[in-house]
């Protein structure tokens, strides 16, 4: 069974920091009190997926670095407003390209699955408000 309260080891964070430090435009990475910061759940997920893939599959981190440089250049060459880019949006574009060139996930495959996910209503099975507690354990242990 999964342990409910597992915490990452201390060295994981410093390892992640050294990966982030070598990325292009790393001064543009959103930060709070010097630490990498995220505003949306998908940002943290895209970030974690990339570093987990690097760790698990052992591809050189430079490969991702290069894709990210290219993804940012694509933006710069096509957009007139250069200040308007989002770091993690470009991050995801780079990850897609990396996954395509490594043969992990093709673009049509990703498009198709994305459409399927968008077609599902959000929390399809959990829409009703539940206004009473689901469990009450009374005082003195009597349920």
């Amino acid at each position: 069974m999964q342990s409910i309260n597992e915490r990452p080891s201390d060295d994981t964070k410093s390892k992640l920091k050294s990966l982030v430090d070598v990325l292009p435009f790393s001064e543009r990475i959103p930060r709070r009190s010097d630490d990498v910061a995220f505003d949306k759940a998908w940002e943290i997920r895209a970030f974690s997926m990339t570093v987990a893939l690097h760790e698990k599959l052992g591809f050189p981190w430079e490969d991702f670095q290069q894709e990210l440089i290219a993804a940012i250049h694509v933006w710069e060459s096509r957009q007139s407003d250069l200040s308007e880019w989002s770091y993690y949006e470009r991050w995801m574009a780079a990850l897609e390209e990396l996954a395509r060139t490594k043969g992990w996930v093709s673009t049509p495959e990703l498009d198709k699955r994305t459409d399927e996910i968008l077609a599902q209503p959000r929390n399809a099975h959990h829409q009703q408000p539940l206004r009473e507690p689901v469990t009450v354990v009374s005082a003195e242990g009597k349920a």
Partner: protein
Amino acid sequence: MSLEHDIHPSPGIVPRSDEEIAARVKAMEAILVEKGLIGSDAIDYMSSVYEHEVGPQLGAKIAARAWTDPEFKQRLLVDATSACVEMGVGGMQGEEMRVLENTDSVRNMVVCTLCSCYPWPVLGLPPNWYKYPAYRARAVRDPRGVMAEFGLHVGDDIEIRIWDSSAELRYWVLPQRPGGTDGFTEEQLAALVTRDSLIGVADPLTPEN
């Protein structure tokens, strides 16, 4: 040239809404996991390093205000959605939120038994364990045991209520103000409020720790 382009469409610049890009990230993860290239647990592990970064700062601020301003607390317990708007928390998109008050005789704990419904704008990103089947099932069957696993030992003289968050109605807990905090400012109090205490699986910190 154009054939090449058709075979490998450039990911270039496709303007996407936040919802679309979130779905894309989810799709990528699902495919990678299905192909056995990576496990969800490895991704969970990496994101748990940063989950506090999207943490419960707003929820902590709101709890601290409720501890220092009895009228605000009343408004919060009666209509949490409006009281949170008062504190600058929006983006609930019509979803209702309710705050459950812990007292000397009642403790509350929040779970989403089906998925991972969570009061996001207030508490940030849910911890990974909130999504685990172990938590979702056991919180309902054996709440005292789950609380104990988090280091929270609740006496038999206290009633425990478990609330099931859904997409339409999301819960969070107003913990009891810790002792030894007389004269604390709202800011000092907010620093004592942890994410786990707002879910109901822990007490807030005390001035000593």
